[in-house]
């Protein structure tokens, strides 16, 4: 049996020193990997006193035990730390090939602390770790150019590069980290953390095999799982029509936000759908490492250049959210966000708020510098993308995020954000489960932990008690949502894409053969619950108040028409039931002592309960 122990490389950019360590096997099995194990590794380092952009704030890039194994859609890497956007737990995961290549160097995680005296990039080639100057890239190369330049310098086209753009360099609170020309760790602003360390990029190239404990038994399972996934209906929809495949369906259900969550109907929905992309600009598909889904889009615009096509969130954010029905304009705004290294959700959300305030005359021409922010004006939206990245004009205010922008203009409840993170594009009035997900996610408004909107459209997971319930169901949905969060946490921790519709028993079987473990569905679900509570505890240490588990009034106002008309989720009742189900204290919002003990989290009791008793 191969050694599958978790190996962590720690690099101190202040001193230039680096070291290797191994995670204890018992922790590896209890926290799996990805952001779950990331929370375990970073727990003691993330304190309320340590600002996210302080040199000593850690940045952790961490794979899952399945990353790069060729299992079903398991090419992902998590990036964790403290968020400059929220001041809370930060995590964002990224596909492409970077995570796989990192594991091929022989390490499973990379922790970066300190700050280089000048811009640098980190090169890891098998056992060689090198900190190299990046002054020639800083301030002059966007994220696409940076990847190409570093690959050229290192002379190996197989090198994979994760990097930041202008937004990360200037520490914009929603700066992202990109790899593989358009795969993005977009959320929670970890690109700014990289920038605060003068770290422009990380290049990895490895030649080592990724260890599999029981290769002979894993091989047939992997083939079986990939064949099943390839033929799955969701896979077919994502491959053929992309992640925006359900646009028309979601418009019908009222799950697709329009005009910054203020309208129930958008006439141009069919002009920005995945189907429309297929019929107009699509030229091909692009997949992450070993993935049979291939949800990535390649498109050709009027300039004749083939490029990355936008995915659902970018389409909705720069499309219906702004009243825009022009796929070419949407694609270009998405590309500029990528090149600057900015999260398309947060950027489009902030711009949407500006459009709404302009419509309601809370902003005037003087505020916008003469920009006509009427719904559907793609040129004005594009101008704001540039202004945000460069902190110019109105963009200087928007670069502080929707929450700060709304407060500045005296309308804090208009910002579609939770805990400082801008809400993505699944309208909670069309899907009550997403209201609870947004309110309770450890990183603020988040659609990846879990993607309960999929359950709301019928993707129940019966074997672990996640049933399909009416989209307007209230407290009866709470246990479903909590279990789904736990299961999504498991999948994220494993390095598995949330789009992979793989049976839970197959996930368990694959994991056990890869790692030589003996997990069951029940024990794996417990790892999800453990990580969920650990992240909650981290947030409590970072100053989270339970009253922040809420949605702004703007998102709770009933719409007049469309599929979500006349409904707002009963969030207060749902939250109360959720606290009960989670066994979280009603007064403080902390996980109870008993629940923490039951989950094997005794070791955080002194930090969570006794220190503040």
């Amino acid at each position, binding site marked *: 049996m191969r050694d599958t122990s978790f190996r962590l490389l720690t690099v101190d950019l202040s001193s230039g020193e680096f070291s290797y360590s191994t995670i204890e096997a018992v922790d590896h099995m209890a926290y799996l990997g990805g952001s779950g194990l990331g929370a375990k590794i970073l727990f003691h380092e993330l304190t309320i006193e340590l600002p996210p952009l302080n040199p000593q704030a850690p940045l952790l890039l961490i794979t899952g035990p399945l990353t790069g194994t060729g299992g079903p859609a398991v090419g992902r890497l998590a990036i964790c730390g403290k968020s400059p956007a929220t001041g809370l737990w930060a995590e964002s995961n990224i596909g492409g090939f970077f995570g796989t290549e990192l594991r091929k160097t022989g390490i499973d995680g990379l922790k970066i602390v300190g700050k280089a005296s000048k811009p640098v990039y980190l090169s890891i080639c098998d056992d060689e770790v090198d900190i190299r100057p990046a002054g020639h890239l800083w301030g002059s190369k966007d994220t696409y150019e940076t990847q190409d330049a570093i690959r050229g310098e290192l002379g190996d086209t197989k090198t994979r590069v994760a990097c930041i753009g202008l937004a990360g360099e200037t520490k914009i609170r929603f700066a992202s980290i990109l790899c593989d020309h358009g795969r993005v760790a977009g959320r929670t602003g970890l690109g700014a953390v990289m920038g605060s360390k003068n770290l422009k990029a990380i290049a990895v190239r490895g030649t080592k095999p990724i260890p599999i404990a029981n290769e002979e038994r894993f091989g047939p399972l992997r083939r079986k799982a990939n064949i099943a996934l390839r033929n799955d209906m969701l896979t077919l*929809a994502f491959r053929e*029509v992309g992640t925006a495949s359900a646009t*028309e*369906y979601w418009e019908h259900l009222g799950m697709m936000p329009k005009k910054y969550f203020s309208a129930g109907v958008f006439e141009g929905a069919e002009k920005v759908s995945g189907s429309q992309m*297929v019929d107009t600009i699509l030229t091909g598909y692009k997949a992450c490492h070993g993935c049979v889904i291939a949800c990535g889009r390649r498109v050709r615009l009027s300039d004749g250049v083939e490029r990355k096509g936008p995915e659902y969130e970018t389409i909705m954010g720069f499309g219906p959210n702004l009243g825009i029905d022009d796929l070419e304009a949407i694609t270009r705004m998405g590309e500029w966000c990528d090149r600057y290294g900015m999260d398309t959700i947060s950027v489009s959300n902030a711009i949407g708020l500006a459009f709404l305030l302009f419509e309601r005359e809370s902003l005037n021409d003087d505020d916008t510098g003469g920009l006509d922010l009427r719904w559907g004006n793609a040129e004005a939206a594009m101008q704001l993308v540039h202004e945000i990245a460069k902190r110019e004009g109105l963009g200087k205010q928007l670069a502080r995020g929707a929450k700060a922008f709304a407060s500045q203009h005296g309308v804090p409840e208009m910002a579609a954000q939770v805990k400082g993170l801008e809400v993505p594009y699944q309208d909670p009035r069309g899907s009550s489960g997403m209201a609870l997900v947004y309110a309770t996610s450890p990183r603020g408004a988040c659609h990846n932990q879990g993607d309960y909107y999929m359950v709301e*459209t*019928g*993707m*129940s997971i019966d074997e672990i008690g996640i049933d399909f319930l009416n989209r307007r169901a209230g407290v009866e949905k709470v246990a479903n949502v909590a279990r789904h969060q736990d299961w999504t946490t498991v999948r994220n921790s494993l390095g598995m894409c949330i789009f992979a519709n793989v049976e839970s028993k197959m996930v368990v079987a694959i994991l056990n053969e890869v790692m030589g473990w003996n997990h069951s569905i029940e024990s794996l679900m417990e790892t999800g619950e453990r990580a969920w509570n650990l992240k909650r505890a981290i947030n409590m240490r970072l100053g989270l108040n339970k009253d922040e588990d809420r949605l702004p009034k703007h998102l709770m106002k009933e719409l007049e028409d469309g599929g979500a008309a006349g409904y707002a989720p009963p969030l207060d009742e749902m939250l109360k039931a959720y606290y009960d189900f989670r066994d979280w204290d009603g007064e403080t919002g902390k996980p109870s002592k008993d629940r923490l003990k039951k989950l094997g989290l005794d070791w955080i009791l002194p930090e969570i309960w006794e220190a503040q008793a």
Partner: protein
Amino acid sequence: MAQPFPSEAWLNDFETLLNSDEQYAEIAKNWEGDFMFAIEPDKGSQDENMYYYMDLWHGKCRSAKTLTQEEAKHAKPAFILRATRSEFINVLTGKLDPMQAMLTRRLRLEGSMTYVLRNVPTVFDFVRCASSVGIVE
């Protein structure tokens, strides 16, 4: 008037209803594609597969007929939808959302997913009309 499902009488009523429905004619005015519905017996049933063929074109049904097993074998419609009788009835009685049924493979679609996803309103209105025929148990 309600009819047994599946039956030729049910199909005939559906065709008549579809061709007289103004809302369907408007919503489906751009639809171009014939369908074959393969209605499979429920587990334990002694019934045989039944096949409906419907030529749907610009908001009208140009032809509707049942097919024999042999005819179904050689048919080349743009779309085939396969499911058990129970699942079809779940959709026709409003217990199951048709798009959800297709995405979860309870209704198994063969044909362009892109085209179906582009025409969600047509799908729902087609089902609305089908539901109004009524089913005699």
